[in-house]
């Protein structure tokens, strides 16, 4: 039998997928999880620097709470985020980290008394409080007012993913490894599961479920140089797109990380700068204070990446055969600190560059890093247009990050969204409307369709070479849809990608004829999917004639709230079309807790929306009139608590804030 039935099908075994699986299982539903690789190999393992949660234990985190985390995240997003989602997220993040602590993550802890830290290139003595001793500590990250990023050395993602996968073992989650979802099964606006391909034997199998959740991570690999793992190819987004029903959000919002090593693009964590490292140019000069006097190296990621690029364009980069780069200097942190808190970085420098970062500077440049866009969902994680399809983690756009995400907010998001979406899925599965109502015949049709596609790829003669097409796509994205964008390049990119898409319909698998484990075949069908994703990114970027967060247009430098305070929604209604359909979803200022303002970097070029001032006035009045505590005031500005699953509505205790949670 090629069909298996379950309650919930989860596609993806990273942090988001695993946490969703655990959640629905604990609510009593059967679940099957498909993953390309053993879950512990998922890209989440590579997260180094840390996870944001406003615990406020360390002295540099004092005064932190959900409100501060909320404000940092919304500003960081350049007001693109859904503020209700941000509120739900910041309220759940402390719970997520405490749960992970109980499940075994060895978070670094506060140590009482004095310690030396490097702040703004100077050694400073910090004194930790007695009562905080032994609680979870945090480091500084870009774009945050407080030190809020909790960590385990620089192997945070690894420690989290291992704890989570071990938890999945305890919960006896059924995990099917080396299985790739290659198509969603859907009928009449309702998703019923997926066709999966066994990457070892080539066998196709249908998994039919009440709810299907895509947690497949980002799409960094559509670019030639990226910090992302080789499997972050946007297949999850493509699966949703290919239904013709589900939609994607803000695909053009792509983050470039300031410090990946040259040439291979492996990341050195933001923790390097958070812990006191600085950026230097060809003359050894520390240039960031000149551009961003206040936040310097710890301005938001998009800002630092742009400043570095600007500086290199002024001829201040270091020339190399792989192009220009700058230096990341962490020598000032001292060997002991590096060997304890930045050991992955040290390993990477030794293994890939042959240098000792305690003595030498690291060659770095901004590199593709994170996908803010993804499958567009409601706050529940359910697709806005395809019932029964859910998505969470980096794969989704529920929209926590808007046009730029803060470092440390992503692993945090994966776990939080997993916790929440699992509850909404379980609620759905309890209702009659979740009943599976699809015939075996239709399921077979979906399997056969995929089988035919694969056979065509193998047996066709003399078509295009997928490796070549894919390389061309990666290069176009890198050269023309990068950190700085302009109309001319973007138009060229769209035209060329469209051409590649047409050619990709004629791909043949050269040389290798096996329908079982066959990397050439895999590359062939994934390239076809990746091109659609790339087109959504490039076309969205071309149409968005403003600069917001990580989307920076040289020909439209201003953030234009009047025209562009909205989300880009792309879909692919028919296989015949060669460009996505694009629509926009307005973001309503009138219900915002934090109306649009100036982010505080560079010159203020914003084109203001008329509602901003009106709403700001209302917000100010509510604040001025009220003598209530911060929770009550927040409630008046933008209620969100009702939307949270009941078990996650409690207030978060801190050393300085104790509650009687009813």
């Amino acid at each position: 039998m090629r069909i298996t039935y379950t309650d919930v099908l989860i596609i993806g075994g990273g942090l988001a997928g695993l946490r969703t699986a655990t959640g629905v299982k604990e609510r009593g539903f059967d679940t099957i999880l498909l993953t390309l690789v053993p879950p512990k190999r998922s890209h989440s393992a590579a997260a180094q620097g840390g996870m944001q949660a406003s615990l406020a234990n360390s002295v540099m985190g004092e005064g932190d709470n959900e409100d501060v985390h909320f404000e940092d995240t919304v500003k960081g997003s350049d007001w693109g985020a859904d503020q209700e989602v941000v509120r739900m997220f910041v309220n759940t993040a402390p719970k997520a980290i405490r749960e992970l602590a109980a499940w075994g993550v060895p978070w670094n802890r506060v140590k009482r008394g004095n310690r030396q830290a490097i702040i703004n290139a100077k050694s400073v003595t910090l004194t930790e409080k007695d009562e905080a001793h032994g609680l979870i500590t945090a480091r500084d990250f870009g774009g945050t007012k407080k030190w809020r990023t909790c960590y385990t050395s620089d192997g945070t993602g690894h420690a989290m993913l291992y704890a989570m996968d071990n938890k999945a073992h305890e919960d006896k989650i059924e995990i099917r490894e080396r299985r790739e979802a290659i198509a969603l099964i859907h009928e009449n606006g309702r998703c019923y599961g997926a066709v999966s391909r066994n990457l070892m034997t080539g066998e196709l199998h249908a998994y039919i479920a009440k709810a299907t959740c895509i947690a497949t991570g980002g799409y960094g690999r559509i670019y030639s140089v990226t910090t992302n793992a080789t499997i972050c190819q946007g297949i999850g987004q493509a699966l949703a797109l290919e239904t013709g029903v589900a939609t994607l959000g803000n695909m053009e919002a792509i983050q470039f990380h300031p410090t990946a090593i040259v040439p291979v693009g492996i990341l050195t964590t933001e923790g390097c700068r958070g812990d006191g490292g600085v950026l230097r140019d060809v003359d050894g000069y520390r240039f960031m204070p000149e551009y961003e006097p206040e936040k310097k190296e710890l301005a938001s990621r998009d800002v630092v990446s742009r400043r570095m690029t600007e500086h290199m364009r002024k001829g201040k980069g270091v020339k190399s055969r792989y192009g220009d780069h700058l230096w990341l200097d962490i020598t000032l942190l001292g060997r002991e600190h590096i060997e304890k808190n930045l050991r992955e970085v040290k390993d990477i420098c030794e293994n890939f560059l042959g240098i000792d970062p305690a003595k030498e500077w690291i060659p770095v440049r901004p590199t593709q890093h994170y996908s803010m866009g993804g499958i567009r969902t409601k706050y529940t994680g359910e697709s806005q247009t395809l019932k029964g399809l859910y998505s969470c983690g980096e794969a989704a756009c529920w929209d926590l990050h808007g046009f730029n995400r803060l470092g440390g907010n992503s692993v945090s998001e994966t776990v939080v969204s997993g916790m929440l979406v699992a509850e909404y899925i379980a609620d759905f599965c309890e209702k009659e409307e979740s009943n599976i109502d699809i015939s075996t015949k239709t399921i077979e049709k979906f399997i056969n369709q995929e089988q035919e596609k694969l056979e065509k790829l193998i047996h066709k003669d003399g078509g295009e070479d997928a490796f070549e097409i894919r390389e061309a796509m990666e290069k176009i994205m890198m050269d023309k849809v990068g950190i700085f964008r302009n109309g001319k390049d973007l138009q060229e990119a769209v035209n060329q990608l469209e051409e590649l898409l047409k050619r990709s319909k004629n791909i043949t698998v050269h040389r290798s004829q096996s329908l079982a484990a066959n990397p050439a075949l895999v590359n062939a069908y994934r390239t076809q999917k990746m091109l659609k994703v790339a087109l959504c990114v490039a076309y969205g970027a071309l149409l968005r004639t403003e600069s917001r967060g990580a989307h920076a247009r040289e020909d439209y430098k201003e953030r234009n709230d009047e025209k562009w305070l909205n989300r880009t929604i792309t879909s692919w209604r028919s296989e015949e079309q060669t460009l996505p359909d694009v629509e926009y979803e307005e973001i309503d200022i009138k219900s915002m807790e934090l109306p649009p303002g100036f982010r505080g970097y560079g010159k203020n070029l914003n084109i203001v929306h008329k509602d901003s001032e009106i709403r700001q006035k209302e917000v100010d009045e509510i604040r001025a009139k009220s003598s209530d505590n911060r929770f009550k005031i927040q409630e008046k500005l933008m209620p969100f608590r009702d939307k949270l699953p009941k078990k996650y509505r409690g207030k978060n205790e801190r050393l300085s804030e104790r509650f009687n949670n009813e």
Partner: protein
Amino acid sequence: MSKERVLKISILRYDPHVKGDKPRMETFEVTEAPGMTLYIALNDIRKHIDSSLKFDFVCRAGICGSCSMLINGKPALACSTLTAKLGEEITLAPLPTFELIGDLSIYTGNWMRGLNERLSTWIHNEEKIDTDTLEEKMEPELAEEIYELDRCIECGCCVAGCGTMQMNDNFLGAVGLNKIARYQLDPRDKRSDEDYYELVGDEDGVFGCMTLLGCEDVCPKNLPLQSKIAYLRRQMVKIGK
């Protein structure tokens, strides 16, 4: 500048899914580039010479443990092996012990999951977690010590490099013993020493290790495997008495 080398990379090829296929060595020539790793070299071969060549890379940064293989006979991660550190002639073969998918690609997932289930490698604690209140405290040094052992990436190198494993395939290997050392250290796990003894206090466990040091030599994360196994053995001897 010195002359570019042409590397001769010999790979043990075999696809168990292809009927009649037989294991054989195949040699590929690749022109070395500066900073080239085996990740780059193997992808070069796949792209330009033989697209059917099977191998696994995920993070390609030495973090995820997917690409362990025998490099000139020694278990190691291919992604973080610079070709400059090797001779002109390189031989690659899949790690033994694990199920072969094809060529250099192996299936470590089911083996590791079996191990984890056998040892119940998760925190055993019946208490309900209250995530609204302050987390339980832990000494900072202890947290660091646990992290040290938590750094295992389940790449399987220690298993492939283990002498005992060759004689007893039920042996837990350094990967398994290290995990028990990790949980025994962790006060959040409420299992007793007797529970651990039950799991590792025999010839398949800590008393099977012949201290040949193969594991520690090949661990890409430089985990202190031998001293941890020795420590665990002393603990278990005490309990066993």
